[in-house]
């Protein structure tokens, strides 16, 4: 069991790794394309010409942007570092694999958090009102962390090609968008569709965003928040457990 001093020391080093990722990876092409441009254009292609209410559109847009941005960096960092031959140098520093993984997740989390403010500000400028800002803020934080951890899970296979990881991520991310109440709210889905939607963490975020902005959600707030917390913890545990096995095989 590590001592309190060791945990604090590793927490500091985790933030240093996150700050390094922010400096290096935020401006990388795949991050900008898959994290920012893609969700915006995908959303526009489904909403333009459909005369939808702004109160309906903005929760979906926030959910899409948060999901894509928070999963944009964490999948590519480890394969990128493997390819660039910086990973072994990093692993030889006095940091644990858990510290490296958590640092990568935090960088992705911060990216998701920052960019998700854009649709919220746009929504406010267009006249939406947020009934429970603190609940929405808690949901954004939990969801961004969970999505960032999900992104990190995509990079578990020990490949050194970011494109391969992005392909794996896309195979999961696109179906998730369609089953998560972004384009069709949960209460309008058939029972079997709703059953499938419960396996997606994005479902719970979209539901809470609709409750805070549209004034109507399908699940109780506590259920949404607990589900987001459970997904965040589970995905972090999966990422750490499997990276501990696969990271040494990348070298």
């Amino acid at each position, binding site marked *: 069991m590590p001592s309190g001093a060791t945990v604090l020391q590793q927490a500091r*080093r985790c933030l*240093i790794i996150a700050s390094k990722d922010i400096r290096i990876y935020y401006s990388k092409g795949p991050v900008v394309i898959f994290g920012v441009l893609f969700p915006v254009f995908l959303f526009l292609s489904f909403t333009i010409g459909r005369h939808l209410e702004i109160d309906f559109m903005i929760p979906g847009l926030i959910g899409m942007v948060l999901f894509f941005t928070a999963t944009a960096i964490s999948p590519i960092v480890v394969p990128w570092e493997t390819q*660039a031959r*910086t990973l*072994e*140098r990093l692993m*030889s*520093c*006095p940091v644990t694999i858990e510290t490296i993984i958590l640092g990568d997740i935090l960088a992705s989390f911060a990216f998701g958090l920052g960019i998700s403010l854009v649709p919220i500000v746009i929504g406010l400028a267009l006249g939406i009102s947020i009934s429970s800002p603190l609940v929405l803020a808690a949901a954004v934080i939990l969801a961004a962390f969970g999505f960032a951890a999900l992104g990190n899970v995509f990079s578990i296979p020990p490949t050194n090609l970011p494109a391969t990881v992005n392909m794996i991520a896309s195979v999961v991310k696109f179906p998730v968008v369609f089953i998560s109440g972004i384009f069709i709210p949960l209460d309008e889905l058939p029972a079997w569709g709703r059953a499938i939607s419960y396996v997606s963490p994005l479902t719970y975020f979209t539901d809470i965003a609709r409750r805070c902005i549209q004034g109507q959600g399908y699940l109780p707030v506590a259920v949404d928040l607990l589900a987001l917390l459970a997904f965040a913890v589970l995905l972090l545990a999966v990422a750490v457990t499997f990276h501990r096995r696969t990271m040494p095989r990348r070298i």
Partner: protein
Amino acid sequence: MPYPGSGDRRLRSPRDLGAEMIGDMVCIQVDNLTKRYGKLLAVDHISFKVEQGELFGFLGPNGAGKTTTVRMLTGIIRADEGSASILGHKASSLGAKQMSGVLPEMANAYTDLSGWNNLMLVAQLYGVPTKEARERGAGLLQKMGLEPRKDDLVKGYSKGMKQRLILCMALISDPQILFLDEPTSGLDVQSARLIKGLLQDLNARGKTIFLTTHDMDEANQLCHRVAIINQGRIVAIDAPDKIRLATGGVHSVEISFNGEASMEALAKLSGVNSVKKLGDKYRLYTADPGDLVALVVQFSGLNHLKIVSLNILAPTLEDAFVALTEKERK
């Protein structure tokens, strides 16, 4: 004092340097260390010790298990069997990593960051206080000739500059032990000399250095002791001179004339075991180089040839290395 045969007056013999600094304390202790990749036994139950203050060479052909051993010692990969400790700490522990500086084989710095930012990043990861990191970093970059380019992105650095920077990154925490995996491989002469000189200085100041290399001259010039690993097993471990002499290699006389000499005639000289032509030189292998020199001088007079250069060569560490690794292969 130049090390005999080095031809480089700036490099000093490891026997002259730091030998008095080698203490009784064990710095690296390896017992039965083993690593398998599927059916391949990459490292096969190796055991050795490195004393504190020692410059220890780890030699072997490609695929012999050198890098796998270094990776187990630096905590990058886990051993399947056996154990290793660094100054009393388990090799993969944070305590061991904190005391070690590592230059991995084929490693790179972050090319999207400047040399200075790479250095400060590693300093932060080792918990070096900012003021100390800045002072030490500036000194290291100055010593390695990188100071004028410290704010440039590493993507614009040459291979030699990158390698010098990575060595600076390994040294920024002022570690007690350095693990260097082929630090001069593929570098230009200037960069290689700079690195070798720095290693000697560091060792003279008491740092323990574990050096993996292909370069026998480098090992011979720098190391107090070397281990030769082949097919995952250590086949020899001793001072370079002792290994050289123990394998009983033959001497040779290397000579060049102002014209062509007959290989057959040279081979017929008394005491010559074999002859090789290397560029404009002839190398005559013999057990008795003193007598052969007299015969070669006589040969040149009889054949109206002028001797341009003549050297007596003792068996090298490379000869010992080849003999030991070939013996294992058979």
